[in-house]
C-alpha cells in the first residue's frame, strides 16, 4: 500500500487537476470596492477611541499599576477568522440557561475581544472591551500605528488589567516585531490608561500570558535567529515595571499550536508556576508541562515536569491547548473525539476535560455531548476559576460556536458580538 504521504499527494493532485489550464478566468481588479471597505479602518487610531487615555499617557510615561491578586486563571485571545456565534445545539445530557451567572464564582465582569474590518490577516485587528453580561462595547483600542494590528490579548486576575500584543507587518512578512501595551479599565469597565511596555519580543510568538498579579508577562517565542539551533523555543518572563527578563530555552520543540496561540501558556494563581503546551519535534513529551519559575536554571524542560501526556486519538482527549487551574490542581482543555464515517454518519463527541496535575488522570468531564458534524469541533476554553469548577467556554455548533459560562454541565449563554474566531471569543 502506498504511504499516507503518497495518498495525500495523489488525492490533492487529483482534486487540483479538475481545474483545467485553459479555464482560468481573466484578472478582474475590483479596486474601488476593496479600498472603500478596507481603508476605512486605517484612519481610526488610538486617539479616536481613547482620547482621554492619550492625554493621560502624555504625562504618565510608563506606569505599572499594582493590581489585586486573585484566584482565577485568565486566558488570551488570538486573532483568527470566523464570524458571529450561532445558537448552540441542544444536547440531551446537558442544559443551558440564559442569564444569571456573571459576577458569581469570580466570573469577570469584563473581557477584551479582537475584531477586524475584514480578513484579519490583511486588515487591522483592533480590541474591544465588552461587558460579559450584555456584550455591550465599553471601549475600543485601535492599533497604535498605521499598518499595525493587535494579535493577542492576555489578562490579569483582577478583571481590570490586560496586555495587548501588537505588531506591524512589513517587508512581505505577515508578522512583524511585537510590542506590548498595558491596558487598565475603570471599575465601570472603561479604558482609563494604556501604557507601552518597555520591551519588545521576537516576531514568532506562540504564547503570551500575563501573571495573575499583572506584574509579569510570560512570552513563548521562537527566535529563529540561531543558526545552530533553528528549532529553539524560549519562554521569557518579563517584569513589566523594569523590563527585566528571565529566559528558559529548549531545542527541538514548540509551545502551542501556532502563531499567536495565546492559549498555550497559563499561570497558577500564585504566579510561581507556568503551564505550557509542549509539542516535541520528535520523541515523547507531547502534552502539558509546568515550569517552576522560582527555581534557578535556564533549561525549559529541565526546570519543568510533565503533568499531562497526550497522544491517544481514540478517546475523548484534548484538541486545544491546556490551561492550569489557579490552584494548580488540574489541567483543563477542550476535548473532542470524532467517530463514524466521513461524509456520512460522522459524529463528534465534545466536552471539557480536567486532569489531575498529580496523577495525569481525568478527574472531571464537563458538558460532554455529541454533535453530528466534524466541522468546527474544537471546544474552546477561555477562562477558569481557581478550582476549575467554573469555566468560560465556546461550544461548537456546526462550525460556529456558542460562548457561555459553564457550571458543571449547565451552560449559561453569553452574548458575544462580532466574534473573529468562534473558538476563542475573548480574553477574560
Amino acid at each position, binding site marked *: 500500500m502506498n504511504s499516507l504521504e503518497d495518498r495525500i499527494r495523489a488525492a490533492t493532485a487529483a482534486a487540483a487537476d479538475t481545474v483545467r489550464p485553459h479555464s482560468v478566468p481573466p*484578472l478582474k481588479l475590483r479596486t*474601488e470596492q476593496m479600498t472603500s471597505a478596507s481603508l476605512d479602518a486605517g484612519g481610526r487610531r488610538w486617539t479616536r477611541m481613547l482620547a482621554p487615555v492619550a492625554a493621560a499617557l502624555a504625562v504618565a510615561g510608563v506606569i505599572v499599576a499594582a493590581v489585586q491578586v486573585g484566584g482565577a486563571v485568565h486566558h488570551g485571545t488570538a486573532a483568527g477568522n470566523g464570524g458571529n456565534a*450561532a445558537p448552540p445545539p441542544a444536547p440531551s445530557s446537558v442544559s443551558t440557561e440564559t442569564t444569571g451567572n456573571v459576577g458569581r464564582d469570580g466570573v469577570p465582569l469584563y473581557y477584551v475581544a479582537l475584531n477586524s474590518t475584514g480578513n484579519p*490577516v490583511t486588515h487591522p485587528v483592533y480590541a474591544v472591551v465588552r461587558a460579559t453580561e450584555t456584550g455591550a462595547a465599553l471601549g475600543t483600542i485601535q492599533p497604535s500605528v498605521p499598518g499595525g494590528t493587535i494579535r493577542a490579548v492576555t489578562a490579569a486576575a483582577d478583571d481590570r488589567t490586560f496586555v495587548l500584543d501588537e505588531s506591524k507587518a512589513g517587508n512581505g512578512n505577515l508578522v512583524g516585531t511585537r510590542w506590548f501595551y498595558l491596558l487598565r479599565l475603570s471599575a465601570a469597565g472603561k479604558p482609563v490608561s494604556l501604557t507601552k511596555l518597555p520591551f519588545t519580543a521576537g516576531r514568532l510568538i506562540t504564547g503570551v500570558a500575563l501573571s495573575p498579579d499583572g506584574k509579569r508577562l510570560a512570552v513563548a517565542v521562537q527566535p529563529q535567529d540561531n543558526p545552530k539551533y533553528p528549532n529553539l523555543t524560549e519562554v521569557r518572563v518579563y517584569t513589566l515595571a523594569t523590563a527585566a527578563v528571565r529566559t528558559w530555552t529548549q531545542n527541538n520543540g514548540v509551545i502551542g499550536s501556532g*502563531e499567536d496561540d495565546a492559549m498555550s501558556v497559563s499561570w497558577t494563581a500564585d504566579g510561581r508556576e507556568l503551564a505550557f503546551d509542549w509539542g516535541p*519535534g520528535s520523541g515523547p513529551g507531547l502534552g502539558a508541562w509546568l515550569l517552576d519559575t522560582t527555581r534557578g536554571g535556564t533549561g525549559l524542560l529541565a526546570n519543568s515536569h510533565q503533568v499531562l501526556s497526550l497522544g491517544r486519538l481514540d478517546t475523548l482527549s484534548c484538541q486545544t491547548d491546556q490551561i492550569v487551574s489557579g490552584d494548580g490542581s488540574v489541567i483543563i482543555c477542550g476535548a473532542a473525539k470524532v467517530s463514524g464515517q466521513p461524509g456520512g454518519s460522522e459524529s463528534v463527541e465534545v466536552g471539557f476535560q480536567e486532569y489531575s496535575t498529580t496523577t495525569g488522570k481525568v478527574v472531571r468531564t464537563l458538558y460532554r455531548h455529541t454533535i453530528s*458534524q466534524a*466541522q468546527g469541533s474544537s471546544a474552546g476554553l477561555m477562562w477558569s476559576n481557581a478550582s476549575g469548577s467554573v469555566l468560560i467556554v465556546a461550544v461548537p455548533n456546526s462550525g460556529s460556536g456558542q460562548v457561555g459560562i459553564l457550571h458543571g454541565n449547565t451552560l449559561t449563554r453569553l452574548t458575544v458580538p462580532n466574534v473573529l474566531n468562534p473558538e476563542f471569543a475573548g480574553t477574560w
Partner: protein
Amino acid sequence: MHLRDRLPPQPGALDGVTALYREHALGLIRLAVVMMGDRQAAEDVVQDAFAELYRRWHTLSDTSKALGYVRSSVLNGSRTVLRKRARQPAHGDQLMAPSSPEAEALLSEEHREVLEAIRRLPDRQREALVLRFYLDLTEGDIAKSMGISRGTVKSTTSRALAALRRTLENQS
C-alpha cells in the same frame, strides 16, 4: 469618500500584478480548490487576493515576495469561506468535494476518502498538509505562507498526519 480611496496605485502595480496572475493564477486556483472543493469559491478567493495585492503593491518593499503574500491571502480567504460555509449545515458536506459532475468523475473513491479526511482536520493542520504534500513547499516556505514558525509547521504537520492516519484506518 475617504481621501485615501482616491489615491492611485503606485506605477508598475498593474503590470506587476497582471504578470503574477498570468503566471500563478492556475496554481493558486488549484490550491484553493484543493482547500475548499469549490471551483467558483476558489476563483473568487484568488481574485480577491490579487485585488488586495494590487491595492497593497506599493507597500511591498520586495515584490519578489508578492507570490508568498498572495498565497497567504488565498489560504486565509479559503479558511474564511470554509468557516462561513461550516455554519450553514446545508453546505457542510461539500467541503473538499468536487464542484461539478465532470470534476467528480475525475476523482476516485480512494481520492475522495482522503480528501474527506483532510477536510475534517482543523484549519491549520489541513493547510500544513496541503502546502507540504500538494505544493511540496519546504518547511520554511510553509512557515512564511501560514505566518507561523518552522517548528510549528513541523509539529502541526505531525499532528495532522497522526489524525489523518487514524481517520483513514477507522474507515478501512
